[in-house]
């Protein structure tokens, strides 16, 4: 039994006296006992700093302070930062500098920053970055956070950023609540009668469960129930399956094994859910897991991708660990090209396993309402409608029209929250069985095992060139680790998403890719920021540098000779895609100039004088995103379409609601979608609300992933808004007593083309709601819905150049310069686009230098189970990135925009690794840890 003690504490100037458990942390007491939801936890090991509060003016991590240690003391949370208005000056700086995206880390960041500013406000970015060591951000790449703190330190007025064509001068709409910690993240939601779930997870990577011993649970008060696989099967529930049907080269469909909702008999990876426990408190739910003893009959796990095809079977029902052998491209033509090539470069390329690790872990709160028979699921999802559909159609919880999915603020995702996992399904199901809402929030350790992982390819690649160093073919043979089960997009990522981009922005006439999807006893692998395109770009850019070196050509020269030229656009690639727009030489040349590429040798010499090795690396990319054209998706094996929806609705008082089927995890759609509607309808931003994430009030949509939101979702907004313009035009024509064709519309006003008459759209709205004198065949109201199915993917492209400095004594690699020039077509909100680049580049640098999900090869234990082991980049490890743009509008969507969310993660790894290659003259694999680099240098020195 926990012992209670009285706690006297002042929170934001207000005194509280309550009883708390002696072992409860300050974080738990603030959130659960005192309702201060702005303080949030993002890890279990006091690494992430999201829980930072000020204790007697000093920043501390509230997850590692007992509440009683704060007895008699003063606590300040972000709610206590505001001055006269809602936001302090510091918070305003954060907003105008776009120093927050999902907002999850923001309260902790602000409090840490406020301590810094109070103590010693040095505006030096290097010092600020060092001070932020204890605060992780996964979205922003820190650059704008540092800028905001620096501006605040200099006592500057928080200025308005430059307004581009559509950009908003006052920060984002979302910032208002997120800066105060008042976002509603799924774990913030507590429902009356709340029960809490936890999951018993496998501790072995491969085995059979002999016994699940629940006897020790009797020692706990408050366990409501324990559910196992049998309970799930008895109720007829089924697992979500893979949504993308890939055909094997044999003509057979892929051999898909989907993860069971619960596995109480056989386990195939560490962390696999075995049973669900529901209890009256979160603490009891977690204690219960520890009380249960599981007896396994272990078998030797298959962990190493390289030998997996020769190892024992992961799935006994299959005759091998191959899920599919798949091919894209013209094998014969490629063979031909290789046989008469003047030069061939071949190599083995590894793409390391990663995890998205957003600061907010996954959570779900399921509620069944017996009175209405309706289910409501609050969940961290990127796609509420897909979740609803899968719950109904695949899992079988209820019919689709009886389920509501509500997702409010999501604390980052990067792909990991696309998929329907078992936990949220089971929370919803259990709520009916127990007649109470059931809530689950992943611990960080749980997250590392339970979320999908990303990347994990082993590739044999070769490039063929003619005597003019023109690339004639690329061939690739890839082993793609799928994990123990095939995840919903797990078949798409290493096949079409990957192979179709093995051309890069180059004129490569022949490509063939052979991909084998392999089962191993590891967590399932699926989309992670870039989803196949980073893997492809890494192969192409690595091959090119390798070939350049062998041919004695500068890497920029080899690229220059092979770039698709603007005159070739629209360009039909040999893999099937058509680049509808793009000027690759333009950003290539601009990047070379901005990075001062051609004076690199001087800097290299300077570094050498200091005993350091300097390298510079180029990465060109083009990628296919803004998924996507449904017809093409169908051909490629998708079960569904990839359109997006929008309802644009004038309320009777002429305020505008933009309701999107898309969603947001920090990308600022409440701002950008409002901007889009505003630009079409001429309505001010303060008169517009954007609604999303709730199936109860949004049109059916496909959600946010694949950098699709503005391109596809925003285009749906345009189409819906244009319908309203046309309707307004008809009403105006009626008012002016002329033809619709004689009415013009601009900046919110309808004008008679050949006269003085004019009427605002607001007045039109009033008329439409009170249609007393009104066109006969026209319906009342001013609301329109559009579904937009893009004609093609969008093809953003860019050139990133990275410069590194290596200390040969320790092997430490520092990124000293990073230049990015990208073409995203029309840029609707420049700070937001830059922010996406910062975050993506940070993750890409992370992959290249630090991040790696590691397993013990013998036991299959997941070594990377905390931020102590998995090195998410911190502020002091990253430089500022130089970002600029070129522009070739997308030709096929009404906004002219291209997706930008994944470009940084796609372009950065090869830029960094090519820079290291340039410095060392040898390749090391990602992540390029200091020891790896040091060993490479030692080896080269030894052999010279």
């Amino acid at each position: 039994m926990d012992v209670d003690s009285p706690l006297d504490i002042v929170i934001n100037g207000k005194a509280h006296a309550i009883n708390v458990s002696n072992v409860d942390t300050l974080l738990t007491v603030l959130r659960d006992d005192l309702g201060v939801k702005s303080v949030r936890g993002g890890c279990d090991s006091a690494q992430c700093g999201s829980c930072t509060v000020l204790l007697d003016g000093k920043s501390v991590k509230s997850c590692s302070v007992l509440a009683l240690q704060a007895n008699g003391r003063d606590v300040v949370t972000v709610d206590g930062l505001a001055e006269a208005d809602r936001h302090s000056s510091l918070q305003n700086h954060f907003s105008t500098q776009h120093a927050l995206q999902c907002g999850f880390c923001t309260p902790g960041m602000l409090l840490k920053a406020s301590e810094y500013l109070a103590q010693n406000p040095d505006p030096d970015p290097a010092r600020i970055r060092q001070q932020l060591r204890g605060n992780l951000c996964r979205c922003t790449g820190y650059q704008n956070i540092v800028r905001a703190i620096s501006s605040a330190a200099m006592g500057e007025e928080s200025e308005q950023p430059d307004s581009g064509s559509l950009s908003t001068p006052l920060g984002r709409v979302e910032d208002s609540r997120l800066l105060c910690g008042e976002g509603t993240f799924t774990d913030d939601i507590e429902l009356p009668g709340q029960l809490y779930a936890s999951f018993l997870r496998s501790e072995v990577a491969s085995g059979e469960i002999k016994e699940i011993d629940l006897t020790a649970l009797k020692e706990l008060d408050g366990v409501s129930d324990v559910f196992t696989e049998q309970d799930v099967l008895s109720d007829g529930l089924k697992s979500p399956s893979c949504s993308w049907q890939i055909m094997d080269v044999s003509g057979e469909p892929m051999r898909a094994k989907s993860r069971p909702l619960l596995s109480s008999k056989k386990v195939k990876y560490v962390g696999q859910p075995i049973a669900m426990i529901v209890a009256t408190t979160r603490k009891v739910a977690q204690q219960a897991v520890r009380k249960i003893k599981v007896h396994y009959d272990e078998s030797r796990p298959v962990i190493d991708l390289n030998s997996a095809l020769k190892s024992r079977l992961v799935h006994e029902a299959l005759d091998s660990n191959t899920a599919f052998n798949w091919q894209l491209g013209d094998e014969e033509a490629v063979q031909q090209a290789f046989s008469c090539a003047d030069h061939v470069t071949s190599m083995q390329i590894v793409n390391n396993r990663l995890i998205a690790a957003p600061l907010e872990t996954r959570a779900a709160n399921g509620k069944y309402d017996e009175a209405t028979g309706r289910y409501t699921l609050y969940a961290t999802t990127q796609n509420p409608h897909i979740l609803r559909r899968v719950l109904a159609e695949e899992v079988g919880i209820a019919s689709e029209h009886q389920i509501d999915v509500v997702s409010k603020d999501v604390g980052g995702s990067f792909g990991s929250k696309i998929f329907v996992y078992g936990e949220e399904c089971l929370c919803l199901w259990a709520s009916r069985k127990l007649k109470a809402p059931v809530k689950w929030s992943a611990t960080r350790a749980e997250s590392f095992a339970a979320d999908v992982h990303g990347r994990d390819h082993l590739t044999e690649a070769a490039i063929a060139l003619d005597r003019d160093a023109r690339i004639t073919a690329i061939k690739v043979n890839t082993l793609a680790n799928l994990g123990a089960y095939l995840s919903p997009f797990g078949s798409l990522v290493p096949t079409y998403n990957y192979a179709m981009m093995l051309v890069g922005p180059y004129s490569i006439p022949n490509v063939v890719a052979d991909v084998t999807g392999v089962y191993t006893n590891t967590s399932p692998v699926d989309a992670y920021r870039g989803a196949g395109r980073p893997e492809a770009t890494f192969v192409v850019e690595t091959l090119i540098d390798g070939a350049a070196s062998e041919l004695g050509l500068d890497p920029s020269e080899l690229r220059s000779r092979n770039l698709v030229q603007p005159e070739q656009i629209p360009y039909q690639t040999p893999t099937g895609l058509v680049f509808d727009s793009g000027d690759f030489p333009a950003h290539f040349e601009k990047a070379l100039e901005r990075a001062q590429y051609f004076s690199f040798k001087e800097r290299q010499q300077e570094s050498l004088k200091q005993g350091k090795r300097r390298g510079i690396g180029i990465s060109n990319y083009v990628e296919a995103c803004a998924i996507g054209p449904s017809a093409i998706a169908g051909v490629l094996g998708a079960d569904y379409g990839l359109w997006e929806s929008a309802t644009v609705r004038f309320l009777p008082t002429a305020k505008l609601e933009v309701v999107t089927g898309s969603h947001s995890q920090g990308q600022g759609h409440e701002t950008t979608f409002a901007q889009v509607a505003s630009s079409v309808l001429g309505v001010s931003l303060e008169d517009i609300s954007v609604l999303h994430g709730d199936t109860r009030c949004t049109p059916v949509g496909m959600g946010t992933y694949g950098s699709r939101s503005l391109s596809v979702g925003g285009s749906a907004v345009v189409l819906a808004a244009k319908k309203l313009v046309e309707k307004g035009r008809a009403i105006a024509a009626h008012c002016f007593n002329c033809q619709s064709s004689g009415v013009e519309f601009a900046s919110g006003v309808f004008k008679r083309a050949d006269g003085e008459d004019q009427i605002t759209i607001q007045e039109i709205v009033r008329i439409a709601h009170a249609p007393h004198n009104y066109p006969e065949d026209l319906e009342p109201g001013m609301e329109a819905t559009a579904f937009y199915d893009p004609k093609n993917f969008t093809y953003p492209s860019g050139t990133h150049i990275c410069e590194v400095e290596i200390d040969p004594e320790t092997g430490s690699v520092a990124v000293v310069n990073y230049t990015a020039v990208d073409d995203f077509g029309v840029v609707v909100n420049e700070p937001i686009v830059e922010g996406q680049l910062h975050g993506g580049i940070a993750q890409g640098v992370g992959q290249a230098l630090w991040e790696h999900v590691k397993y013990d090869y013998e036991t299959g234990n997941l070594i990377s189970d905390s931020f102590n082991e998995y090195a998410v980049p911190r502020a002091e490890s990253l430089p500022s990135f130089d970002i600029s743009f070129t522009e070739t509008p997308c030709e096929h969507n009404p906004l002219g925009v291209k997706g930008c969310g994944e470009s940084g993660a796609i372009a950065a790894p090869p830029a960094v690794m090519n820079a290291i290659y340039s410095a060392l003259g040898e390749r090391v694999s990602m992540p390029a840890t200091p020891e790896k680099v040091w060993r490479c240098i030692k080896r080269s020195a030894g052999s010279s």
Partner: protein
Amino acid sequence: MNISSTFHSPETIADAEAIYRESKHPIYLGGGQELVLRLQHDLEHVSDLIELSNISELNGIYAEGPTLSIGAGETHAAIAGSAVVAQKVPVLSELASNIGDSQTRNRGTIGGAIASKTRSSDWNAALLALEAMIHTTKNSHMAEDYFAKGGLTEGELITKICFEIPSKGIYLKHTRASSTDAVVGVLVTRFEKRCRVAIVGHQRVAFLCPSLEAALVSRFHQDVYDHSYIPADRFSHRAEASLDYQLNLVEVLCKKAIRGCA
């Protein structure tokens, strides 16, 4: 948790000890960050938590002749920000200001770091290289003896640590990307007629290199470094860093520290 953890906030060492004696499974809480996390994960079974942060006898930073005394209850932040430390023993300022991050430094205490049985602290290098005397409620230990004996005995509480003030000192460490814990840390100090080289890393205790120290006394220059002076049996191959890489780091950091103390 099926343990009843009573929470105490004594204001004197005597009170703290009295509570300890009467408790079944007591634990002292300094900053307590590590312990708090372990409690959340049910890794500790504690009957009585005895918070030390209200005991003023454990505070105080002052120089007295050739030594600098630091109360065991002083936080890393307080030590890093102390004008006395900065002036008298700047290497300790540097060391303290690079432990963890600012939030952890605001809570973690030097006493807690040294007493910890689960982590190897940068302070261990300082204890050896600055010939510290660790004063506890039961005894006074020279740093080397303290490590040789395996740390504190049951119920023993560190009260203050007295460091010998060197004429020069440098602490350098190489860390992993995911943590500020030293993969290898080297602290070199120079006194009037002697010098010390202390090494800390993933191993649980730090150690001195008497052979290297002797060589440096003859000639204080990085050229006297020889890998035979490093007790290689104190290192082992680890997942985070293989043996030869650790030894390489020792050499690099030693030489750099020697250069810095010249």
